[in-house]
């Protein structure tokens, strides 16, 4: 039989081991599943070391850029932040709010030299929604460029 102190020590050790194992699981999964967000301008600058990484790109869907392939769900469009435009392809059902001139975030794996193939497209549940991570000026610029493209 173990003595009281030994038992207490044993219990504390078990707590430490179990807790430590859980926490290491938390942190190891955490670092692996961070997805960074870029604007079209940023992604054009930083694209070199992103190969094989999942990224999010956000901006507005450029007015007049949306092309649908008839008979399929395949689409391509340009995402703009007002300075640069970035081509995106997608094959799947679109969220209700997806529309030209509206904010959008596309997520997918970055593969250098190829068109960006979005795995998912996000739009939030609000009419006046702007992409979450876009800065105020970015939105203003994008709006201007949309106005320009409409003229």
């Amino acid at each position, binding site marked *: 039989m173990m003595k009281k102190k030994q038992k207490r020590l044993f*219990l504390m050790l078990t707590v430490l081991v179990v807790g430590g194992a*859980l926490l290491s699981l*938390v942190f190891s999964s955490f670092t692996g*599943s*961070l997805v960074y967000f870029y604007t079209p301008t940023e992604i054009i600058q930083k694209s070199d070391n992103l190969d094989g990484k*999942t990224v999010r790109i956000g901006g507005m869907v450029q007015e007049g850029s949306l092309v649908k392939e008839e008979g*399929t769900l395949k689409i391509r469009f340009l995402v703009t932040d007002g300075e640069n435009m970035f081509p995106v392809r997608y094959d799947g059902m*679109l969220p209700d709010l997806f529309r030209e001139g509206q904010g959008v975030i596309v997520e997918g794996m970055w593969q250098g030299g190829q068109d960006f193939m979005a795995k998912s497209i996000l739009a939030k549940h609000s009419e006046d929604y702007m992409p*979450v991570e876009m800065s*105020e000026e970015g939105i203003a610029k994008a709006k201007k460029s949309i106005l320009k493209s409409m003229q």
Partner: protein
Amino acid sequence: MWIEIAHFSALLALILTFLQIFSSLYGVTSGNNAWIRVGRHSAVVVALLLTVSTVGLVNSFLNHDFSVLYVAKHASLDLPIFYLATAMWGGHEGSLLLWAWLLSVYIGVAAWRHWKTHPVSMPYVLAILGALLVGFLLLVLFLSTPFERLIPPPFDGKDLNPLLQDPGMVFHPPFLYMGYVGFAIPYAFAMAALITGQADEEWLVATRRWTLFSWAMLTTGIVFGAYWAYYELGWGGYWAWDPVENASFMPWLTATAFLHSVMVQEQRQMFKTWNVFLVTMTFALAILGTFLVRSGVLSSVHSFASDPGRGVYILAFMTVLLFFSFGLLTMKSEHLETDIKLENPLSKESAFLFNNLFLLVATLTVLLGTLYPLAVETWSDSKVSVGAPYYNAVFIPIMLGIILMMGIGPVISWRKASFRQLKRDLLIPTIFAVVTGIAAWAMGMGNFYGISTSVVMAFVLATHILDTRRKVVARMKNRESGSAVTTLWQLISRNKRRYGGFVVHFGILVMAAGFIGSGLYQEEKNLFMTSGDKVKVGSWNFTLDRVGTASKYNWRAVEAVITAEHDSGFSVELRPQKRVYNETSQPTTEAAIHTTWFEDIYVVLGDEVKKDVWSIRVYRNPLIVWVWTGSGIMALGVIFALMQGRISREKKLE
């Protein structure tokens, strides 16, 4: 007119809440009972005044009073009356008033119910709760007011967001808040216990039912939200680890830990500091949840920074709350000292310890994933998001651990469990669990987590049933009369709290089956169909009969009529729609769902990709109805446990 009455009542309530605080404190320091009574009466009057205020706002909605800015923003002439009455909490301002109103009602009820039983701590409880209410009333009256007029009034309002026009969304916020707000009562009692120095088990026993009730409301509220997401958002799932969802899940996790660790203090006078910590954290996380959802910080740190009023206020409120609580905890920690030490690894105490460990790591997991992106965005140029894979990777093992402890905790004995007892209680369940695992594997349930979940579930089910059976047999031996059924009924009605807990555990098992089924075994398929096409998915044959239109007075829709025929010959008509509500141009997807105990068929109508060719997405969601059913069973279990009054408990102790 109504809105002025509402506004004025809320102002008066604020003044009387100050009276409630100061007369309680003055009364208790000067020893003058009359002042203490003034504090109590104020609490009741404040509850009435805020009820008037809430009714006033609801009434402005019912009257289509668009000269009230808040009404103009969240309702329209077309809005059905049910949603008109509930649009009161459709926006930030109204839902904060709902918070304050619920809190005041709880305070009123607490002042009335605990008056005779807790004369010493009651003045402090009322002062602390009053301070919390002042915090929310200042917000409602000065920073985020629903009482503002809009002159000249528009002819029609902007309408309630169509996504919110759904029963799930109508009940989600009030239930959630009834949970959030309810934890204020045990929190205030804990703080009062520290101040008065009567920090024994009394505050836990006094607030046991408040805690249980709030926990049940929070659980139900979260599930309503999940159900709404499933029904309304059309993506086939119900939980996306979205920060808004996480915000409500964190207090649930700490509350669940609290619910269990109080038992250790009640029975063994241990974990005293820990319980105060847990109840403080639960309430603080409820405030944090309100902050995250109501401050706008989640949609963008930058847009939040440009209009920080409401958010900074709630954050400051939470900081004060935490400093006060932990300051008090440190200063008065001598009241919480205990000589009893936890020393045996094989005891109920240590089972609860591990239960708390798992739940705390779970809380940390969610907290990290929710706050880290905000921190990165605030302090650096990068923006980052944490995806569902992180949560799934961490949560499934934690869930397995918690379920396993759920099988051991209720049956293992306090202080020190003997190996003989453990063998008696756990041997058969272990064998049963292993057999279940092998059977699951043999039946082709390939997924590792699927099999492990069925193993621990079988284990828990067996320990609960075996324990109940053993107690029934023992009782029957003693009495030598009565049938097994009446003995069982006597047993569970004598200890409603324990067997209510068993029912809750059973509900969790049912839910866990639903999580695993819908989470690991979901199938989805994209189809292109012309009228008359037949497609087979799983054991269902889908025929697109036609695509037409449908409408109601406040929306129009494109509607597909699809016949789904099961291999067994059963057939059902599904009508997925794409709706456009009159007041908005935003289309919303209305999925058509056919529910069976075994699986849900979930059909979404997409775009017309070519003339007469429609894209249609079909999901097969196994066991999803078990998630909703499980939460219902949990609620029933809590109701049963709540029926055990304090009196019967005291009698038993004598």
